[in-house]
């Protein structure tokens, strides 16, 4: 409890004791008698102890033109009750109101703290080596290129490269997966991970504000800016709810007594209305639930950029996946080589030489295989033709390496038997020279993840790939995808996403999952763009709405589950709060309930809604 909260607690207890004393003073019919004064005095003392600040705030806010301020409404309700002679009611309403406020403040503070603990990435200090001395400074004070020392058990404060020592780093805070990564001299380390065993010295490669930990923290903290539609709706609703209930109160206090003359009874009911008029339970629980969901997800290495994306993900029924690196491991292996008129090694060497300039995973696998066989791979004038392949000069011969479309474009007839895998063709001086089959194995848990999505009601799961159709279909079949769009050029992916977007059922959302490297436009086009394996990739963090720090495809169904749970909690809170408030309003209007029930409808509901909202944080058993 904070100081302010403790002070309020003491005040509430004192007021409650005085108020309890008031109940022992017998009531009297005789106005202005000693007993009458005593009773009024005791309750008034309790009233003022409990609520002087409410009254004060009400006066101040009225001066600022805030008519429908909750302090003002509570003041009117309680003062009104005092004036019509219901001293205990007027006093207790205010005490309960304060209890509720205190409870609310504690609950919100607690959840805020546990959420920020969850994203416990920010280092408190850095040990920097300056002039042979090790100083403990704020991470912000360390410049790029300085040497920092990280002892076992400490958090890595800044990104950098190891210059001394070796150790195992725990990246759980970043990725949600408790895995040790062994690092030694020359390896890159990311801030936010924890040094578990040996002493490390690293040369920093970024300032604190550009470090991985700072970026992730910023991402989660800024998520509150992107408010969910439900939250905006509730805020708008709150703006009309209070005035309507207040007008209802005025009508209730004035119109019926004109007919039956029972002023005090109707005014009492009107005052009860005022107690219920605060929309706090709604306004507080909706963002709290979303924030809790975002915090809970971050513990699993799922960083969500805003409540709106969490909301969209809950509605997602169409899932579009990029194949390479998302559903498959993204590391290709050369499977078979079919040379044509030359030796196997000659073909592999030529292709590798040309492909060396390319960063494409397929090209890399060919180069890797050639290197393994210690082939000579030298090329001149190599140039990459996006979507087709590579053209280069190897040992004075013009070599073109690429897909079937490339060969077609060159007018080179090829041989192609149907095989599973991706086929790379090679043309030498305009003549077909053979083909290499490379394969990219699906991730072990990809099929499992897709199955879970189906169970969650994902009606359409589509894979996009630049691969040949039959190779792509073979992968799709083993994984259990519903559709495949194969042989897509890089810009064809966005077009495919557009097309699928147009076909999605109304009121559902489309989610695109990619590795974030080349799919920025698709990530942006989808309702929700999820980038995988984003740790250390700024481009992916930038482009996506939801960022998976780990490379685990099963985080996708987990994120959907978290989104659904959060959404359900939000709905529960809204329905519950509104139902109780409406019920109490109706019952009050007909005179069945009293001010006690109204206080429950106000603060009691808030507290219950807050406790319910805090469930959104719990994501371990999903």
């Amino acid at each position: 409890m904070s100081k302010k909260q403790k002070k309020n607690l003491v005040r509430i207890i004192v007021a409650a004791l005085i108020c309890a004393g008031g109940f022992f003073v017998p009531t009297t019919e005789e106005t202005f008698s000693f007993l009458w004064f005593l009773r009024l005095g005791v309750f008034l003392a309790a009233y003022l102890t409990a609520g002087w600040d409410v009254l004060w705030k009400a006066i101040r806010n009225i001066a600022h033109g805030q008519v429908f301020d909750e302090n003002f409404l509570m003041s009117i309700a309680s003062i009104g009750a005092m004036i019509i002679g219901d001293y205990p009611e007027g006093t207790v309403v205010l005490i309960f109101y304060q209890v509720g406020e205190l409870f609310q403040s504690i609950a919100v503070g607690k959840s805020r703290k546990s959420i920020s603990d969850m994203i416990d990435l920010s280092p408190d200090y850095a040990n920097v080596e300056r002039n042979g001395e090790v100083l403990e400074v704020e991470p912000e004070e360390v410049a790029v290129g300085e040497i920092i020392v990280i002892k076992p058990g400490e958090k890595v404060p800044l990104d950098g490269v190891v210059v001394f020592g070796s150790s195992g780093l725990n990246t759980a805070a970043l990725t949600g997966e408790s895995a040790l990564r062994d690092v030694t001299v020359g390896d890159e380390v990311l801030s936010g991970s924890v040094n578990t065993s040996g002493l490390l010295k690293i040369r920093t490669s970024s300032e604190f504000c550009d470090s991985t930990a700072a970026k992730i923290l910023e991402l989660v903290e800024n998520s509150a800016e992107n408010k969910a539609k439900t939250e905006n709706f509730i805020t708008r609703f709150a703006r009309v709810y209070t005035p309507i209930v207040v007008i209802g109160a005025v009508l209730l206090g004035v119109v019926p007594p004109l007919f039956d003359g029972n002023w005090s009874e109707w005014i009492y009911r009107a005052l009860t209305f005022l107690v219920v008029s605060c929309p706090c339970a709604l306004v507080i629980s909706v963002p709290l639930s979303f924030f809790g969901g975002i915090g809970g997800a971050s513990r699993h290495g799922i960083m969500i950029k805003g409540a709106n994306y969490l909301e969209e993900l809950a509605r997602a029924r169409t899932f579009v996946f990029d194949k390479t690196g998302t559903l498959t491991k993204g590391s290709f292996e050369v499977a078979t080589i079919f040379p044509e008129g030359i030796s196997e090694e000659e073909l592999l060497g030529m292709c590798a030489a040309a492909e060396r300039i390319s960063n494409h995973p397929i090209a890399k696998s060919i180069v890797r295989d050639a290197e393994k066989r210690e082939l000579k791979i030298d090329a001149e004038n190599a140039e990459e033709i996006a979507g087709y392949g590579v053209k280069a000069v190897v040992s004075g011969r013009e070599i073109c390496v690429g897909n079937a479309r490339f060969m077609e474009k060159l007018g080179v007839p090829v041989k192609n038997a149907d095989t599973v895998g991706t086929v790379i063709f090679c043309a030498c001086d305009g003549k077909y020279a053979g083909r290499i089959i490379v394969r990219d194995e699906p991730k072990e848990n990809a099929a499992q993840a897709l199955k879970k999505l189906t169970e969650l009601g994902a009606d359409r799961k589509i894979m996009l790939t630049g691969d040949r159709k039959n190779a792509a279909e073979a992968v799709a079949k083993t994984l259990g995808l519903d559709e495949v769009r194969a042989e897509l050029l890089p810009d064809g992916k966005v077009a495919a996403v557009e097309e699928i977007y147009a076909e999605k059922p109304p009121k559902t959302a489309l989610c695109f999952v990619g590795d974030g490297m080349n799919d920025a436009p698709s990530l942006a086009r989808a309702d929700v763009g999820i980038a995988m394996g984003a740790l250390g990739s700024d481009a992916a963090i930038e482009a996506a709405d939801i960022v998976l720090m780990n490379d685990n495809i099963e985080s996708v169904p987990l994120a959907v589950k978290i989104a659904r749970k959060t959404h359900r909690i939000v709905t529960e809170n809204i329905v519950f709060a509104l139902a109780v408030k409406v019920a109490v309003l109706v019952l009050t209007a007909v005179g069945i309930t009293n001010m006690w029930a109204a206080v429950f409808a106000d603060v009691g509901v808030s507290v219950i809604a807050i406790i319910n909202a805090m469930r959104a944080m719990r994501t371990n058993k999903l």
Partner: protein
Amino acid sequence: MKKTFKLIDLDCANCAAKMETAIKKIDGVKSAAVSFMTQKMTIEADDERFDEIVKLAVKECKKVEPDCEVVVK
């Protein structure tokens, strides 16, 4: 220009919503968000008038919740 400010003692969620509405109405503000959860306020506004707009925004916040303090760095 877009900047984030820390809020101290922002005690009620409804007040945060009211502040946000009021700040959005200030002339020159492109977007504004007041987060009760993170106790932060983000304002995006014209560069030339930014400081002036921030002052107006702080004033609006004080109007809604006099106890709430905006940390202007």
